[in-house]
């Protein structure tokens, strides 16, 4: 049991999966020799062999489609998209094939596979490298979408995703890869896909977020607490299927909620969450459910990142406004 960061936790989970289950194989661009651009698969090719951890040509649709075929044939492929922004060429494979084979064959065939995607901004990366378009995946019936924000959840959810009988899109917050450290057991417990994680208990307001934005959300919560506000923080963690009960229960208690995400406001997952709260906890609401999100723009390049990323100040400001209503 040692302190590891989120990237190391993922690497450990993959190592464990490869060791425990011979059906597990890893494929993706540059994941073998170099261990991936973020080193998440570092050392795994040497340890488990190039028959199970392989580099592929630059072709995302091919990666997803080949992994899909492997899954149908009984393997447990874990495919990597080098960045979420490069998963779009695979979108057709994911929505039209990966997500549908069970439905199309009434359970005769299924696609137990994981598609890992580093996502989110904040590191001054080039175009397309900072996307957080989780909403285009959470709207796809037939898959599950997960986004951890702590090393324990990262390892536990990834192991659960690999065990899952259905396909899982696994979003890894780039900004947090090396930003957070935590004790993670050598064999981490599976973390069930579905339930939210109550990151912090409180009575006055609920801040709801996931993935990398938990960083700013935590900071905002502390700032508010220092002003005497009792803040509850929800790490949604499983973005699809959504744990509506878990979220609504919190708002029934606090009566106030702010949803925070990095993706563009319009059409973002925050809308689904705010709509759910407003529909099911309307009579508990003491203020409108507000959203702090990215603007309706492309995620900008390095010099404008600060203009785009929801800041601790923005969260505190909107939360304070919500507390005043």
């Amino acid at each position, binding site marked *: 049991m040692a302190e590891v960061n989120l990237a190391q936790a993922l690497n450990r989970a993959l190592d464990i999966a490869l060791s425990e289950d011979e059906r597990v194989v890893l494929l993706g661009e540059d994941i073998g020799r170099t261990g991936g651009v973020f080193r998440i698969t570092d050392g795994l090719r040497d340890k488990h062999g190039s028959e199970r951890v392989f580099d592929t040509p630059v072709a995302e649709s091919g990666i997803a489609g*080949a992994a899909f075929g492997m899954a*149908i044939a009984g393997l447990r492929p874990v495919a990597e998209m080098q960045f979420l922004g490069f998963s779009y060429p695979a979108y057709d494979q994911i929505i039209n094939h990966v997500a549908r084979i069970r439905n199309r064959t009434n359970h*005769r065939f299924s696609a137990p596979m994981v598609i890992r995607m580093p996502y989110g901004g904040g590191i001054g990366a080039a175009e397309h490298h900072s996307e957080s378009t989780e909403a285009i995946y959470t709207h796809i019936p037939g898959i599950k979408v997960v986004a951890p924000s702590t090393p324990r959840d990262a390892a536990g959810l990834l192991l659960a995703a690999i065990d899952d009988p259905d396909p899982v899109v696994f979003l890894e917050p780039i900004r947090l890869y090396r930003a957070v450290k935590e004790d993670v057991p050598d064999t981490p417990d599976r973390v069930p896909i579905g339930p939210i994680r109550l990151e912090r208990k409180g009575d006055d307001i609920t801040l709801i977020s996931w993935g990398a934005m938990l960083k700013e959300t935590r900071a905002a919560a502390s700032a508010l607490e220092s002003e005497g506000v009792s803040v509850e923080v929800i790490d949604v963690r499983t973005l699809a299927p959504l744990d509506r009960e878990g979220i609504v229960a919190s708002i029934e208690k606090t009566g106030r909620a702010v949803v925070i995400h990095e993706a563009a406001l319009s059409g973002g997952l925050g809308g689904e969450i705010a709509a759910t709260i407003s529909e099911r906890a309307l009579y508990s609401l003491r203020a409108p459910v507000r959203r702090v999100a990215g603007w309706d723009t492309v995620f900008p390049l390095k010099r404008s990142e600060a203009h785009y990323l929801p800041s601790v100040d923005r969260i505190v400001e909107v939360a304070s406004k919500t507390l005043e209503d």
Partner: protein
Amino acid sequence: MFRLLNPDGSVRDRLPITLEEMKALYADMVEARMYDTKSIAMQRQGRLATYAPFRGQEAAQIGAAAALAEGDWVAATYRDAALNWRAGYPWGLLILGRTGDERGGEVPADVNVLPPSITVGGHMIHAVGLAWAEKLKGSERIALTSFGDGATSEGDFHEAMNFAAVFATPTVFFCQNNGYAISYPTSEQTKSETIAVKADAYGMPGIRVDGNDVVAVLVAVREAAARARSGEGPSLIEAVTYRLGPHTTADDPTRYRDSEESADWEKQDPLERVRILLERQGSWTEDWQNELEESASAVIEEAVEWAEAVPEPTFDQMLKRMYAEPTAPLLEQLGGETR
């Protein structure tokens, strides 16, 4: 173009198959054609949703499937009913699917045929993953993917061919070049001399065969399958054929092709040349033909009856086949939130 059996029933070389095999292939083609005819009739009667006829492509489909072994994987298209059937997909399930029922995709446990792909192009890479998995598992199985001339224009064709070649997966790429992608002729679809030549771009063997010669197709696919099984990797086979019917029962071919063209191809009928050959060898008689048709139609009628006897699909079934276990939102929706 590789051909063994000419349209007039004459033979190029000694045929590498026995008379019995030949008769079996003929019988299968007859049964397939009857299924096709029956399906069109049923669609007109409103008993099937849109249907994609394969008349004219029986030799390509039966020949290809006949070259496969038990347990081999097949990923084919909406037009490949004959191929899928010969590979183990029961007529009844094919019909059930065409009535508009997802349960038509629930093939028996010992059948490794994926449901017909409706998207053009997306399924070829699946046959690469399937074959790759079998290779990694060390099994003998291979995967065959069937697709049309139009599908070769999709980016997924390229990625599938490249992956198969790079990882030497035991995959057979079987293209039925039937002259058209709906209204778009193959001559415009690509400017390459043939579709077979596209294999060069992947360092993969490519061969062009007469798709209306069931023996040539059988031989070509057998060789490709053997190559795959022995670890030598994938191959591309272009079967040159023609869609004698419309694209689907909703299509009107007169809008984009002239009747002479179709008439010429009618003369190259894939069944007729085998019939003539068998007749010359004294193995075809009116009586035998009648026998074949009667037993085939009995089989198909039975399949139709079975399919139409399947109870209407329910709301719950629709929600319960999305995941191994319904997710929380689905459980709520099953709970019968106002329907």
